[in-house]
């Protein structure tokens, strides 16, 4: 078996890396609860297949990053794919070259050192060309990475992540690996009159002013050293994403999911972040602080190394904009809430809550939620709509109600939330309703995801859309120009984009803003932004408004009571909930009008 002491740094580094990585993954996998709906039988095979495809598309080719920016995509792809191909092709060539059944792992890496003359290897020409080609590819990627440090705008990024701690060691060794390999290979090519377009030409060039014959061995040593250092630094650096992301893709396909109570899955998420920095520009905290310590790219670093960063932990809006942008698909919000959970003492609380509801004959229940209580105009509008549609709706939390639990979850009090959820669930289920309509997207998401209710749960925009479609209510069209704002929990959270828009188009002209749908801005008022002052929240709100409306916009329509509240305080134009604009433009039959009038008059009569 071929051996030379120069392979020692490489080999030790590799062994170390493998031990650490396997140990970590083993512990994390053991900390993962069984998935709820794992793929079975054929589906399981399909899951493995799909995962493999995704690994190729994302971990190697970086398709999602390409979509974001071509140059950035090429940079990531050339390093990952180029390196991968160097390993694959190198191994193939080594197989063809050596007669041994098994080669030690270092053999293909140092193939040119051990077997400089391979003119007899079948396909030698093609091999040496491909190897040079992929080396050139990796080097071009490295050059771009180097440029990106100072010129991130070229890559479609206003801000890029800063290198810290272990990342630096890993980065510098990574930067050295491929230039050193080029030196070693080109010196080797000159000394043995081999090589291809890159190595041969470089070899000739270096030989004009360097004693390449004497230097070749030291280059191989340095190459081996840089690899060894990189492997040792890898598990503690951003590059840990290289192996972790692959595992993450597989476990995701096998049905494992992240959780606000941290599990092993969250650890895979944590270490799959390459700190590529793509999420940075998405985070609205940027406008509050130049050195944004909140955005996931930075916060994840602090989480990994255990830095205390309370502002980062508690100022995050949980808006999910970074999650939406992340090419790795990391559940950034769950990671943060999970961290809040582990920082919060979980106590058992004695809740003093209203009794379960009595069984009723109502089919539809309406839940206005705590946030709805802060915007009574929304509730009143919903009641006007219910009356107009002749719908007999049970207002579940009209006088007494229980919070959906989401505010507690967002603050990390997941166990207390679970208690509350159980109480509220019992209360709702007892009523016997078949459909639950909520005005608040926050409640809606919680009902859908954390309640396991066996009834239909819909947002009031979807409900109004149904009423319009079935012509239970009629509206008049106004020539008003309005803008719509997608609330985080309804849009990114539940992917409900069309229902509100369809509803609005019945009564007004809807002009879309560039940030619509999954790219929509947060109103700033998020319940998750615990560490933000009211002033900071208003700064976020007014910045968002200016990006959503233009001079023509007469009203800003939203479908979340909390967004309405945040915007109202800074908006120059009227802010309305979707229920309000509909209730104001209802066409009512004559007898109904009389009823509505009475309804209003009763207010002013005290007796």
């Amino acid at each position, binding site marked *: 078996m071929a051996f030379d002491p120069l392979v020692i740094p490489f080999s030790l580094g590799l062994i170390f890396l493998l031990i650490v990585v396997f140990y970590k993954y083993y512990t994390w996998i053991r900390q993962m609860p069984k998935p709820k709906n794992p793929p079975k039988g054929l589906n399981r095979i399909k899951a493995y297949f799909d995962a493999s495809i995704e690994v190729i598309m994302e971990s190697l080719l970086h398709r999602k990053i390409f979509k974001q920016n071509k140059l950035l995509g090429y940079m990531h792809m050339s390093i990952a794919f180029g390196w991968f191909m160097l390993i694959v092709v190198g191994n193939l060539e080594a197989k063809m070259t050596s007669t041994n059944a098994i080669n030690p792992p270092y053999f293909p890496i140092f193939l040119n050192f051990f077997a400089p003359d391979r003119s007899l290897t079948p396909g030698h020409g093609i091999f040496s060309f491909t190897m040079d080609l992929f080396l050139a590819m990796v080097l071009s990627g490295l050059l771009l990475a180097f440029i990106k440090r100072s010129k991130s705008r070229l890559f479609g990024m206003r801000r890029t992540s800063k290198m810290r701690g272990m990342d630096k060691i890993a980065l510098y060794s990574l930067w050295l690996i491929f230039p050193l390999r080029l030196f070693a290979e080109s010196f080797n090519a000159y000394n043995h009159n081999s090589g291809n377009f890159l190595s041969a030409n470089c070899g000739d060039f270096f030989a004009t002013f360097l004693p390449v014959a004497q230097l070749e061995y030291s280059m191989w040593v340095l190459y081996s050293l840089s690899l060894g250092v990189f492997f040792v630094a890898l598990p503690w650096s951003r590059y840990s994403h290289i192996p972790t992301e692959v595992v993450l893709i597989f476990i995701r396909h096998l049905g494992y999911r992240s959780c606000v109570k941290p599990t092993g899955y969250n650890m895979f998420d944590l270490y799959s972040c390459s700190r590529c920095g793509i999420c940075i520009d998405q985070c609205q905290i940027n406008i509050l602080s130049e050195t944004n310590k909140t955005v996931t790219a930075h916060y994840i670093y602090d989480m990994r190394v255990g830095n205390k960063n309370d502002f980062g932990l508690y100022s995050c809006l949980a808006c999910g904009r970074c999650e939406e942008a992340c090419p790795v698909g990391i559940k950034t919000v769950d990671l943060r809430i999970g961290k809040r959970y582990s920082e919060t003492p979980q106590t058992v609380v004695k809740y003093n809550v209203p009794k379960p509801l009595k069984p009723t004959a109502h089919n539809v229940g309406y839940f206005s939620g705590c946030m709805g209580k802060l915007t009574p105009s929304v509730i009143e509008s919903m009641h006007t709509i219910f009356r107009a549609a002749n719908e007999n709706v049970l207002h579940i939390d009209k006088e007494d109600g229980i919070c959906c639990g989401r505010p507690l979850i967002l603050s990390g009090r997941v166990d207390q939330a679970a208690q509350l959820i159980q109480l509220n669930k019992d209360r709702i289920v007892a009523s016997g309703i078949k459909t639950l309509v909520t005005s608040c997207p926050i409640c809606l998401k919680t009902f859908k995801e954390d309640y396991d209710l066996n009834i239909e749960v819909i947002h009031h925009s979807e409900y109004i859309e149904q009423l319009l479609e079935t012509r239970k209510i009629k509206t008049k069209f106004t020539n008003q120009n309005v803008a719509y704002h997608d609330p985080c929990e309804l849009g990114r959270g539940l992917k409900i984009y069309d229902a509100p828009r369809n509803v609005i188009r019945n009564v007004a002209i809807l002009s879309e803003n560039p940030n619509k749908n999954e790219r929509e801005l947060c109103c700033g008022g998020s319940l998750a932004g615990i560490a933000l002052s009211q002033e900071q929240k208003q700064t976020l709100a007014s910045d968002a408004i200016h990006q959503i409306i233009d001079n023509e916009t007469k009203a800003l329509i939203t479908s979340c009571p909390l967004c309405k509240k945040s915007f109202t305080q800074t908006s120059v134009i009227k802010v309305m909930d979707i229920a309000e604009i509909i209730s104001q433009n209802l066409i009512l039959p004559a007898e109904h009008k009389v009823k509505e009038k009475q309804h209003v008059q009763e*207010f002013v009569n005290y007796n």
Partner: protein
Amino acid sequence: MTTLKYQTVIIGGGVAGMAAATELHKSGSKVVLIEGNKKLGGQVNNWYKVFPNFRPASEIVNSLSTNLLKDKIPVLLETSITHIESNSGNYILKSNQGQVIEAETVLLATGFNTFDPSGKEEYGYGIYPNVLTSVELEQRLKTNTNGISPKRIALVHCVGSRDEKVNRLHCSKVCCVSAVKQAIELKEFYPNAEIICLYMDLRMYDNGFEELYRDAQLQHNIKFIRGRLSECALNIEKDLVLKIQDTLAGLPMKLTVDQLILMVGKEAHQLPQFDESIIIEKASHGFIKPADSHLNPNTTSQPGIFCCGTTSGPKTIQETISDARSASLAVCDYLNKK
């Protein structure tokens, strides 16, 4: 177009502007008073009677405006200053009526606005007709139009003051005692109704305030609950149901009322547009920040521009008038040294 020339332009014809105009005129300065409305008197016009002695607010306005008339001090009504620029030590002011005025000094008496509670929707303002602001109540008291015998009325203090949720951290100073005054007036109107004040703290800091508060409890049987209103909703009978955190008992409570009065706080009135070279510093609550709050309360960060009355923060009528008089001394001093 001719440029009108004055030594001092006073912007704002409320009680501050009127008091300052008379005072400056007395000391020989050539002044003009500019008011955006049809009538002098500013915010005081919106009041029926004033605390602590239930004197009609109109008396104060009339007395101050009679002085102006007597002294033939020029007043421009329905005029607002749209732009101010500096010109070799003087100021050039342009109005919405097209006038151009040159002056050596400008005295800002622009005063305050009341907080608009529709942003604080949970209090039901603008949604339930029986929720009104303290200013609207004054109008109803004045015109005797507050409807028929309510059984219970609540007055909420500190609406738009000392409230982090609406980003207003300052105290508006007069709402507490105004509430006590209005509570007594309501009780006199509706002797059988229960009148309740929901307060955070009671700031009865000036002469006669504490006595008024005592009277309210002993003579008028007005109830005071130390509590924060969290939300206001309707029950089936269309009564307003208030959810309150009783901060003394530390318990949540519910209260059903027929009418809810919101004691709206003060916030800075918009200033005219200044040229870039003019810098008027503001304090965190949005009112003008005096150069020295103890020794030069009427001097702004811009030489030649002064402020008086509630332009530099919430004040009572009495404080406003004294402040206006002190401002005229500061203006005279400046003109003399010039």
